[in-house]
């Protein structure tokens, strides 16, 4: 009996690292570093449970995609990771998010410091109504990184594959850029302060296919220096860009509706040989 229980526990536990190292050939060894260890994360707005009991680990220099149907708590989940939900009055969080072992919601943790290390790019491009240059330079200035600011801005714009398009008009308003350019500017803005992690909340959902593919290409390049987590409702996008994919779904029971993590695995495995029926239904288009 005890042995059976043990087995059961092992099955429901978060993905175990040794197994994955063995399974994954193309991943470099250092890619196994755990950046986030999320344990029993439950997020509520008032009495409404948005995400329930999520356990997963996110690894360094990988692109981790979060997919799932509308309302399954994908955005809530990703916003928990850099404490962007703090300002929502009724928001409550249980469980732990360990970032390199430190609890993001622990005592004395400053959300400002958290967000400085864990950047975020939003669904709709939201450049500030300033010049292109000032959009990128604003955060470094605020954080006191004023040395060689021009180089920093150029580096960030180059990393975001935007430099060649804007180098002659850095003093023009950022609002004069196209939607795709604006989104890449927002990425440049986020990486100008050299965060370790970049969270992308449906970064391409407001963009046309060409702009979308340039963002996806960009993500591949950024992987070298950053750990990326992307929320997307577009399964093809997850399949194209992500190394690992987490599938969230909506669970309805007596206590109400809540988003839950159904399956988390290598992207190729999750899409071709999912171990959960619900995942299979979703990725084959039978629901959602």
């Amino acid at each position, binding site marked *: 009996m005890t042995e059976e229980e043990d087995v059961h526990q092992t099955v429901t536990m978060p993905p175990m690292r040794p197994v994955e190292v063995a399974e994954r050939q193309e991943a470099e060894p250092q890619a196994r570093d755990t950046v986030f260890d999320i344990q029993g994360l439950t997020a509520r707005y008032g009495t409404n449970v948005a995400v329930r009991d999520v356990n997963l680990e996110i690894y360094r220099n990988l692109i981790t995609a979060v997919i799932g149907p509308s309302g399954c708590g994908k955005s809530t989940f990703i916003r928990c990771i850099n404490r962007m939900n703090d300002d929502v009055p009724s928001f409550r969080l249980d469980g732990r998010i360990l970032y390199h072992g430190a609890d993001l919601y622990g005592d004395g943790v400053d959300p400002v410091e958290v*967000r*400085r290390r864990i950047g975020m790019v939003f669904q709709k491009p939201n450049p500030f109504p300033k010049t292109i240059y000032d959009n990128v330079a604003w*955060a470094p200035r605020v*954080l006191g990184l004023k040395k060689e600011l021009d180089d920093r801005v150029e580096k960030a714009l180059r990393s975001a594959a935007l430099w060649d398009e804007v180098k002659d008009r850095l003093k023009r308003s950022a609002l004069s850029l196209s939607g795709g350019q604006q989104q890449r500017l*927002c990425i440049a*803005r986020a990486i100008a302060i050299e965060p370790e992690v970049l969270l992308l909340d449906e970064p391409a959902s407001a963009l046309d296919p060409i702009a979308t593919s340039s963002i996806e290409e960009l993500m591949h390049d950024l992987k070298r220096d950053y750990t990326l987590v992307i929320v997307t409702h577009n399964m093809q996008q997850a399949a194209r860009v992500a190394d690992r994919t987490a599938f969230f779904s909506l669970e309805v029971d007596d206590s109400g509706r809540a988003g839950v993590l159904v399956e988390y695995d290598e992207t190729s495995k999750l899409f071709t040989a999912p171990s959960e029926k619900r995942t299979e239904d979703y990725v084959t288009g039978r629901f959602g």
Partner: protein
Amino acid sequence: MAAAERALTLRGNARVRRRRIVNRLVEGVATIAALAAVAMLGLVVWSIAKRGAGDLSWGFLTKSLPLFGEPGGGIAPLIVGSAILVGIATAIALPVGVCIAVFLQEFASPRVRAPIQLVIDLMNGLPSIVIGIFVFGLLVYGHPQNGLAGAYGLAIVMLPLITRATQEVLRLVPSAQREGALALGASRWRTVVGIILPSALGGILTGTVLAVARAAGETAPLLFATSIYATTVQWDPRHALPNIPTQIFIWSESPDPADHKRAWASALVLMLFVLVTSLVARAAFVRSRRKLSR
């Protein structure tokens, strides 16, 4: 006839026609009420222009006040005095009002916001004569009259207006801008100072200009604080400052018909200032609003 009755008719029966008449009637009454408001403003502008325009001249705008019973004279001291009073009032009310609005919109929890909002709104409804007496009792009684006390009174009038106008524009700043700044590791106040206030600047300034237009015409707060003054241009706000609204009041109480004419002309100057600044401010506000919501 019988055939015509059986054919489809869209003219409607008696009840439908009655509804149409009632509809027209209500529409007409509402239109007349709206036109009456326009006519009232037109009437005020026209009557003041008619009585005041004749005495308006360059000399009237640039000369000192006439000594009692003398002909001629001008209102230069009034214009300068009013400008100083409103200037000091703005210097007090603008920063305080913007800070209150930032607190209410960006920092306060809803539970704290509601009562403070109520206080600001009640302040807006405070009778200006009450402000005048308050300022008199607090700052003037036992001292000589002085312009500073009058400016404080005007600042009390302007404060809720500026606060309200600033809140309105802060509400228009998209929350995506806030989130974008916060996600870059900027603290709350940095976000406010660096991103939100610059976006809202146009709206704040136009709200301020509207408050200036309102304060320029306020008489009651000045009546006890700065109403006994010299006839020449005064620059020192520690003394009583000549000002347009009070002087209009004094001249219109005078038995001398020449003073009545001066009162009309001064009223015209004041009214033109208020109308023009309000219109310009409103036009600018519409523009900045469009820019924000784009």
